[in-house]
């Protein structure tokens, strides 16, 4: 029953049809929110008392690292769906999401590094968050490499899903263990997130940027999954008709 239900609503055909309709709304909403959040954050939000103006990187950095992890969790859910119910679309979505995840993780690392120069006086610190993000980035690349190595794409889908699921178990373990290790070797690094103490004048643009980047990335995901679905199903009739 459940299987039938899932398969009905997860055919690549209906996915492409629905997302094609949603795409214009998502992209317009996402980009305008992002623009609003960033202009607010860059020009109107007050200076940070401690870090000065360099903190304005937060409006890109924090959304980026949030989605670096969220995309991986999304992929893990897809991987489970693919392994348990053999949903083809789920595997396509993993394959489409992984490059975006890698890109945004890289952006998170890079912005963090650049932020680190004026704030910490160093562009790299072996702290729990940074190290686990770096490992996350490598895992994204590993997943892509694994999928690319097999000519039988159905096999590649399944192997990739196994790796994604094992990887998602690994993320909290790495975080925990790096934390453990780094607190032993060095004093805890500067905590990046302001938590609840953050002033509303900084919080609102941050939240808006997060929502904006989220919808922008979803739009990007729609595009990238569409091209991948077309690629994989190019012999199917519905694709040939739709072109």
């Amino acid at each position, binding site marked *: 029953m459940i299987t039938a239900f899932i398969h009905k609503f997860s055919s690549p055909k209906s996915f492409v049809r629905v997302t094609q309709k949603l795409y214009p709304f998502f992209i317009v909403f996402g980009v305008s929110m992002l623009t609003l959040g960033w202009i607010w954050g*860059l*020009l*109107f939000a007050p*200076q940070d008392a401690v870090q000065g103006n*360099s903190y304005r990187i937060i409006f890109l950095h924090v959304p980026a690292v949030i989605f670096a992890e969220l995309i991986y969790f999304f992929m893990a859910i897809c991987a489970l769906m693919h392994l348990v119910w053999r949903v083809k679309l789920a595997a396509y979505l993993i394959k489409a999401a992984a490059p975006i995840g890698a890109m945004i993780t890289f952006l998170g690392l890079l912005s963090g590094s650049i932020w680190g120069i*004026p704030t910490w006086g160093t562009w790299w610190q072996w702290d729990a968050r940074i190290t686990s993000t770096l490992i996350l980035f490598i895992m994204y690349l590993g997943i892509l490499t694994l999928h690319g190595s097999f000519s039988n794409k159905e096999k590649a889908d399944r192997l990739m899903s196994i790796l994604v699921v094992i990887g998602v178990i690994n993320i909290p373990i790495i975080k925990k263990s790096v934390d453990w290790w780094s607190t032993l070797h060095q004093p805890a690094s500067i905590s990046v997130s302001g938590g609840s103490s953050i002033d509303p004048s900084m919080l609102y643009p941050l939240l808006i940027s997060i929502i904006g980047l989220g919808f922008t990335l979803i739009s*990007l995901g729609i595009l990238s999954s569409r091209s991948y679905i077309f690629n994989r199903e*190019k012999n199917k009739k519905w694709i*040939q008709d739709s072109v």
Partner: protein
Amino acid sequence: MFDLAFNNFNEILDMDGHGIYVWSVYTIGISMILLSFLVAKHRIHDIKKKIKTKNASS
């Protein structure tokens, strides 16, 4: 809350010496996201063309 945090354009660029970091992060970020969109669009275009030529030949 909605007062400009800077007095003039130069201050915006400079940001008390931090401008180079802030603006380079945003430049890189925006260009990477833009580039990904362009690549995705280009890929869709490519595969559609491929399918079309295949359809036409068969």
